[in-house]
């Protein structure tokens, strides 16, 4: 796994190697093993194009240096990620007469591009972000994997196209503007993430998952090469066939994700998905598997009992890191330095500690269970939506809303509610059934309430913003014909998955400590097959991930299969304020939330923030909305501080 960056100058301005080195050094954490730069000028004074690479050596340790040229040096690539089926693609290419100088997957991409052009990406099974400079055509080709595992950002500013794995690298270019995109803030306070291509930074775009891009003659073109499609559900698929095929695909997805020249470990949460992956790895590999987990000091969040059951059952060599509230507050500024966007929950912070543990044990690669909840129907939001849909068909039913009690058994505040209030919170209206966002309205409406904390100036700026409209524009034309369950899955898989789970909780937390995550559930063959499984087999009545349990349940301890799903969460407001003393756990919390600082930065309403902080000091921030508000405001303030107001931090981090 690695970091990439590069510049294409349009107005005859030269790209200096020093600039490329500065850009790649800022994201040195992504690839501490080696780095390199290329410019299309043999003298070395700079050229109109430059590529840079920071390497984390995983495959072909001695031969995979980048930027890498093809045989006649007419193509140069900088690549972050893995093409897991490179072994098979390489054999095909050799049969066609291509010569290989290395055993890396990087060289396979180059020859695939020579062979198939831009369409090459359709043949890749993997997780990637890369740029290829085609010197003959004077054209840069960039691409990002289907699910959005590896990041890629770009800015088309100041007579240049600047791209990189992380925004901080783009900001290291002196001509790129540093400013917060207020509409993105409005979207984060609705969906938990900005709607791509928008990012939190003005003028800096994200290449969306499943998209490629070209830069030629000063023109930038972006297009999708793949998308998720729920139009071909196999209604008559039998349970047995479905389970058999799923297990076969998952096993192969796991097998090819073990391709590595360094040892591979696994994350173990104690839940079904990571347990299944761990069991599948064990079937492929003879050596004792190393597993890693987070445990919590706070019993409300701790799953170590279940983790221990899986460890005993599968006999792994396990390491755990114990996370306290103080730990979360202590690493939170670093966490935001890496997420490069506000977060509404602290859940990424423990994963930052976890990747540190993996790094300390000398591991660079871990397999995890991400993607299962999205594609096989695990999330509570699918269950909630199913109940609300069932109820909306007969709004006057007295019995139907009683099912709401079956939701969120771990949320005590909700369980204490009367039926009348439950009905009000999950309100349905027969007319809502035709709303394309039916499943997500309660979550988005709850999150949007955080906007009460925005300053009057920001409220004014975003008054005309239309966040739902932005998402609507991205929906595929067939979307209205899909069933409600598939629609909900699509929203989750194209929204929160790349926008938060794979980025703020995924790539950015793992790469902060030079650890690469690999995700068998995100193998495109698994994803495409899952999109054909009838919803009734994904959630049987209200039994989530039923088909996965049927397919792989025998591989894990029975309790992991049968216990109710517990979402991964971490303490929020109480991580920052100790309710026993009423004090902030670290000085930065007081400073960034102080009245003067909030006024100066101008994004939030100083009075509202003061009242929220007062509540947090008393330990009275207990609800979802207040917790999200506190974490969201603090993380936004950290973002502004680190990237806009005091950007010298970027220079300080270089070379880490």
């Amino acid at each position, binding site marked *: 796994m690695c970091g990439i960056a590069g510049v294409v100058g349009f107005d005859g301005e030269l790209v200096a190697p020093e600039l490329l080195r500065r850009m790649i050094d800022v994201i040195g954490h992504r690839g501490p093993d080696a780095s390199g730069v290329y410019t299309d000028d043999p003298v070395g004074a700079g050229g109109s194009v430059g590529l840079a690479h920071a390497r984390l050596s995983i495959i072909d340790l001695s031969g995979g240096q980048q930027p890498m040229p093809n045989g006649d040096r007419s193509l140069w690539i900088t690549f972050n990620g893995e093409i897991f089926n490179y072994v098979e693609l390489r054999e095909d290419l050799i049969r066609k007469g291509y010569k290989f100088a290395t055993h890396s997957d990087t060289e396979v991409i180059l020859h695939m591009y020579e062979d198939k052009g831009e369409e090459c990406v359709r043949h890749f099974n993997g997780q990637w972000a890369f740029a290829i400079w085609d010197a003959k055509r004077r054209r840069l080709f960039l691409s990002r994997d289907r699910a959005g595992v590896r990041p890629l950002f770009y800015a088309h500013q100041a007579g240049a196209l600047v791209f990189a794995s992380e925004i901080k690298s783009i900001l290291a270019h002196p001509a790129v503007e540093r400013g917060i995109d207020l509409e993105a803030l409005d979207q984060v306070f609705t969906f938990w993430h900005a709607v791509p291509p928008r990012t939190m930074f003005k003028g800096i775009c994200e290449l969306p998952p499943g998209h490629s891009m070209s830069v030629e003659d000063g023109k930038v073109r972006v297009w999708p090469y793949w998308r998720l499609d729920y139009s071909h559900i196999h209604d008559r698929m039998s349970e047995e066939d479905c389970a058999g095929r799923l297990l076969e695909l998952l096993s192969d997805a796991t097998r090819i994700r073990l391709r590595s020249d360094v040892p591979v470990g696994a994350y173990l949460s104690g839940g079904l998905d990571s347990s299944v992956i761990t069991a599948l790895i064990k079937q492929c590999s003879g050596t004792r598997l190393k597993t890693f987990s987070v445990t919590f000091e706070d019993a409300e969040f701790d799953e170590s009992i279940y983790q221990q059951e899986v460890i005993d059952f599968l006999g792994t060599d396990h390491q755990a890191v114990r996370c306290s509230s103080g730990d979360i507050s202590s690493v939170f500024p670093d966490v935001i330095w890496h997420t490069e966007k506000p977060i509404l929950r602290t859940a990424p912070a423990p994963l930052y500690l976890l990747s540190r543990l993996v790094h300390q044990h000398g591991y660079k690669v871990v397999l995890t269970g991400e993607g299962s909840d999205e594609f096989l129907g695990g999330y509570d939001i699918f269950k909630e939506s199913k109940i609300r849909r069932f109820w909306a068909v007969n709004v006057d039913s007295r019995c139907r809303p009683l099912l709401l009690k079956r939701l969120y058994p771990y949320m005590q505040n909700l369980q204490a509610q*009367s039926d009348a*209030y439950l009905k*009000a919170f999950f309100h349905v209206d027969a007319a809502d059934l035709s709303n394309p966002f039916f499943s997500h309205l309660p979550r988005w409406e709850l999150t949007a309430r955080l906007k009460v*904390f925005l300053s009057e100036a920001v409220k004014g700026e975003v008054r005309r913003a239309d966040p739902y409209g932005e998402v609507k524009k991205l929906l595929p034309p067939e979307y209205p014909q899909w069933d409600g369950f598939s629609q909900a899955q699509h929203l989750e898989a194209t929204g929160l998955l790349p926008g938060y789970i794979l980025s703020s909780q995924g790539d950015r937390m793992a790469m902060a400590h030079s650890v690469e995550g690999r995700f068998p559930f995100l193998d495109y063959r698994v994803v495409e097959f899952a999109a054909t499984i009838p919803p009734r087999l994904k959630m049987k009545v209200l039994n989530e991930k039923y088909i996965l349990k049927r397919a792989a349940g025998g591989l894990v301890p029975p309790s992991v299969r049968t216990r109710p799903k517990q979402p991964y969460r971490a303490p929020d407001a109480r991580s920052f304020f100790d309710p026993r003393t009423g004090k902030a756990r670290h000085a930065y919390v007081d400073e960034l939330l102080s009245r003067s600082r909030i006024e100066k930065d101008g994004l939030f309403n100083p*009075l*509202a923030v003061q*009242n929220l902080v007062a509540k947090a000091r008393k330990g009275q921030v207990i*609800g979802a*909305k207040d917790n999200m508000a506190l974490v969201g405001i603090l993380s936004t303030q950290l973002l502004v501080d680190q990237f806009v107001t005091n950007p010298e931090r970027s220079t300080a981090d270089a070379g880490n």
Partner: protein
Amino acid sequence: MPEIEQEMRQFIVDNFLFGDKETKFSNDDSFLDRGMIDSTGVLELVAFLEEKYGIKIKDNELVPENLDSISCLVRFIDRKSRATS
């Protein structure tokens, strides 16, 4: 009565609107419809009423008809206070 109304309004503004006096709401506006209250908010409100007015609220009284606007709250507290005194 106006005193209770004022106290309720203060509590709602401080705890659910975080002091944002710009958000105007009438005594009959539904907290639910206006997006001012969530499940935790209901429990916070109940804890406040029990402590402030020395009343005990039963489970079957935890319904929007009693708690979902300033007017509802004023009537509910009045009724409860009479019952206990």
